[in-house]
């Protein structure tokens, strides 16, 4: 008897059953008829051919019914599919070799990997045509002309790669473990599946598509990959089948988490110590260390193999610790150290937790370092790096910045590129390590944000990327054409750790109902907003200093009352920001201050869709007036009803200007680079609308944070790490 594959599977899995079994169904050509699964609807009652019908919120409605994920759920022409993380629904089946003809207008036939009908034709399900890349599964991109999702690159999941564009799934994993690169895609969220021959698996907390395999020989063994079972499932007959994917073999203990060691034979991280560990590795007893000394206790998470400093072996250095001078694992940066440890004076050492750990020094609880208190305040230095640097669509020549000892933060500014987007394409720290790569924008220590006309890119983005003394090397890249760019840096330098900071503020008024520079000083509602704004920033250790009031005046007051365009250097928004160059003439502070432009409204979308505020950059140019990015704009319409909302908007947009990203973006699939801010993931999307909103992300999931994408009454929390970043911005005195 011949085996025949039939349809009716949950995502990722294809089942095998014996052909001719009762209950088989067979997808055939043709669109859904009125009332059937896949037909348009406005209410469930219109789905007359569906038992227990529901009308899904898809374009023009979509008749369906819930199902449980089984092979024989749903009627003969529909397939049980998982939509989102939880719910299963019957979707209209289609044949992929018939294009989109089996689906309604504006719907596409989306293939189901490894699933065919009784005639051997590949089967799919009808889903709405894509509009944007985020609508596509498996990391593919949306061809907006056809509404189809198409591969991004040439290489399949599991193949070697050097950048994202080479991979079908749009993601090239590159790090010390994934030798030679590994094509992949993000998966696991709504409508997101892996391409045929790969499976969705969790790797370090991220859901990624990995190459399917049955034996080591299926993987790139020559480059250190092996086939590892990551789960199992029962097939239709109740037989347990292994789910295996190609993963890198471990090569040394440092690739394994604390409590595990790398077994050279299996290439897996196995529980326990294995051979005695070298200096710097985890331990629970002296016998587990080559040196014979294991330091344990609260300050030393998972133990630390160390030794007295009489003769530190190769790969270790002598350092001062709360337990005296000890041999510590050598390092050049924090990434060389185990989790819970930092690189101090070339050795991986324990983090301080409070001032009592630091003797005469102070403990910076964000960085875990013992530091000298600042005595003379911070100073800001501007350095010209290069002029007329040709920048094109390829990485520019290498530029360098000498960062002196005591630098808390620095911003690199590149001016004069016109309307094309520009960004630092690559940056290496003084140890030579790549800390930013534009082809892997979320994979490095830093987070940069591209913009047009001029850019400001700040270091640090988080405590792990705190500047170290030495030479930083970087290259620029832009999104088309060639321009000669001037590059400079602004550095914030102090004798010790910042204990706080001061931010002077300029308020520029466009023509806003009942408010101008003169009346604002005594306007109860505005002053209430400013008081709230001060309070929010005080939690970051920033004192809002002098508030200066000035009018844009004359025709500019009218012109910028309603900001109708926000993109590009010729937009109203950018032109208004450039007015900050007249700060002194208008009665505001021409020196170091953040510029807030108070306007009637800002239009950010079709039909006058209002946005509450917008920043000139993430970050904006610190202390620099007169550029097309030199400020923050805030919508004032209706502020008297809710001064607190105006305060939150000022604080939120000011946070962007000082270098903070959204802790969670609206779709729940992108987050800031800070480890201590909560992330609200798609699993919180209770109503399955593709957006994680304020209510869905309450109760510790992140919407209480000031930098959450949406506003709300309680959204004023600022984390320690967020304070760490803004206090290092050269714009904060």
């Amino acid at each position, binding site marked *: 008897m011949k085996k025949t594959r039939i349809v009716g599977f949950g995502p990722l899995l294809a089942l095998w059953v014996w052909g001719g079994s009762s209950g088989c169904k067979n997808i055939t050509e043709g669109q859904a008829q009125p009332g059937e699964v896949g037909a348009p609807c*406005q209410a469930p009652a219109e789905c007359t051919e569906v038992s227990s019908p529901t009308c899904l919120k898809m374009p023009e*409605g979509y008749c369906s019914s819930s199902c449980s994920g089984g092979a024989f759920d749903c009627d003969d022409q529909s397939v049980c599919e998982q939509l989102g993380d939880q719910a299963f629904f019957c979707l209209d089946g289609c044949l992929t070799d018939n294009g989109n003809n089996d689906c309604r207008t504006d719907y596409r036939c989306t293939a189901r990997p490894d699933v065919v009908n009784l005639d051997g034709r590949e089967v799919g399900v009808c889903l709405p045509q894509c509009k944007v890349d985020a609508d596509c599964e498996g990391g593919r991109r949306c061809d907006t002309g056809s509404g189809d999702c198409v591969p991004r690159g040439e290489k399949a999941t599991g193949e070697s790669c050097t950048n994202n564009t080479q991979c079908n799934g749009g993601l090239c994993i590159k790090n010390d473990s994934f030798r030679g690169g590994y094509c992949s895609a993000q998966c696991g969220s709504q409508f997101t599946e892996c391409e045929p021959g790969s499976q969705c698996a969790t790797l370090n907390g991220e859901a990624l598509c990995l190459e399917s395999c049955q034996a080591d020989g299926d993987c790139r063994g020559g480059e250190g990959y092996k086939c590892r079972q990551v789960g199992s499932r029962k097939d239709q007959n109740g037989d347990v089948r292994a789910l295996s994917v190609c993963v890198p073999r471990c090569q040394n203990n440092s690739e394994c988490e604390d409590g595990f060691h790398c077994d050279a034979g299996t290439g897996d991280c196995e529980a326990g110590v294995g051979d005695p560990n070298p200096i710097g590795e985890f331990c629970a007893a002296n016998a587990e260390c080559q040196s014979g000394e294991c330091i344990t206790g609260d300050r030393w998470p998972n133990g630390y193999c160390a030794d007295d400093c009489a003769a530190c072996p190769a790969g270790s250095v002598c350092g001062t610790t709360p337990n005296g001078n000890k041999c510590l694992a050598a390092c050049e940066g924090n990434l060389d150290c185990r989790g819970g440890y930092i690189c101090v004076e070339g050795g991986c050492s324990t983090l301080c937790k409070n001032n009592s750990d630091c003797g005469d020094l102070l403990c910076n609880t964000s960085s875990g370092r013992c530091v000298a208190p600042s005595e003379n305040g911070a100073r800001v230095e501007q350095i010209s790096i290069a002029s007329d640097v040709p920048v094109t669509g390829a990485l520019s020549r290498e530029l360098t910045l000498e960062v002196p000892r005591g630098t808390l933060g620095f911003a690199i500014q590149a001016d004069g590129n016109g309307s094309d987007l520009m960004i630092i394409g690559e940056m290496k720290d003084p140890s030579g390590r790549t800390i930013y790569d534009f082809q892997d924008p979320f994979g490095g220590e830093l987070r940069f944000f591209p913009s047009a006309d001029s850019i400001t890119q700040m270091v640090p983005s988080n405590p792990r990327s705190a500047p170290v003394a030495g030479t930083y090397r970087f290259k620029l890249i832009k*999104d088309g054409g060639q321009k000669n760019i001037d590059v400079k840096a602004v550095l914030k330098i102090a004798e010790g750790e910042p204990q706080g900071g001061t931010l002077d503020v300029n308020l520029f008024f466009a023509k806003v109902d009942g408010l101008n520079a003169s009346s604002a000083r005594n306007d109860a509602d505005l002053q209430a907003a400013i008081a709230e704004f001060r309070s929010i920033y005080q939690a970051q250790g920033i004192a809002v200093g002098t508030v200066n009031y000035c009018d844009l005046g004359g025709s500019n007051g009218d012109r910028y009352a309603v900001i109708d*365009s926000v993109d590009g250097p010729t937009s109203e928004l950018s032109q208004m920001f450039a007015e900050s160059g007249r700060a002194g003439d208008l009665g505001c502070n021409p020196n170091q201050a953040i510029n807030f432009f108070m306007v009637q409204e800002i239009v950010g*979308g079709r039909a*006058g*869709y209002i946005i509450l505020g917008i920043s000139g950059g993430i970050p904006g140019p610190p202390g620099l007036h007169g550029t097309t990015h030199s400020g923050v704009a805030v919508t004032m319409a209706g502020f008297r009803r809710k001064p607190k909302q105006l305060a939150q908007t000022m604080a939120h*947009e000011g946070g962007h200007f000082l270098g903070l990203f*959204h802790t969670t973006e609206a779709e729940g699939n992108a987050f800031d680079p800070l480890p201590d801010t909560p992330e609200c993931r798609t699993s919180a999307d209770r109503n399955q609308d593709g957006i994680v*909103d304020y209510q869905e992300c309450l109760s510790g999931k992140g919407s209480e944070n000031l930098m959450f994408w949406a506003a709300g009454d309680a959204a004023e929390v600022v984390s320690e790490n967020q304070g760490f970043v803004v206090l290092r911005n050269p714009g904060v005195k």
Partner: protein
Amino acid sequence: MRKLLIIQAFLLASLGQALADAPTVTDARTTVLGWFAGYEFVPTEAHFKQVGPLLGPALASIALDVDADLFARARAVSAMIHAPGPYTEPVLAAIAEAQAAESVLRRKAVEVLALNHGDTYVDLVASVFANAGDDLPLREACARALTSMPGEAARATRARLHSLEKSEIVRGLLAEPKALVAPLKATPVGDRFQRVQP
């Protein structure tokens, strides 16, 4: 204002019936209100499409809810461009005409009326313009609305108002329709950059 109140009462009554019949109207309202809370987030047409036929009633209920956040109400009025039809058309007209309504709501209403219904509301928009007084942003919005109307009546109205208008900004809007109908140009991001919502 009286007309607005009547419309409000009518719609709330019919919505009340709808709510009693189908609690999903409440769901739709809750869903879009969640989107309207963003600082900079602008929902796309695809977002609104997934709400389905309940979008119009949900947006109308928000726009008319005097207890709702003003920004949410203004955003609901703008979003009516995605839900033209019997639920939104009278609401837009009533808000546009209501002199006691917030200016920001009226500005959005005249623009969406023009975009959704073309020349049908030339006279109404002209009337709002004429009675806008010193409210320059409202006159600007009316000028933009008239410019997006393609017919001869709108063109003649623009010419008439242009001759009376004193603000150079509004005169410019009335005189240069080509510059007005151009949609906001999104900055090209390119494949190399993954853009984060600013």
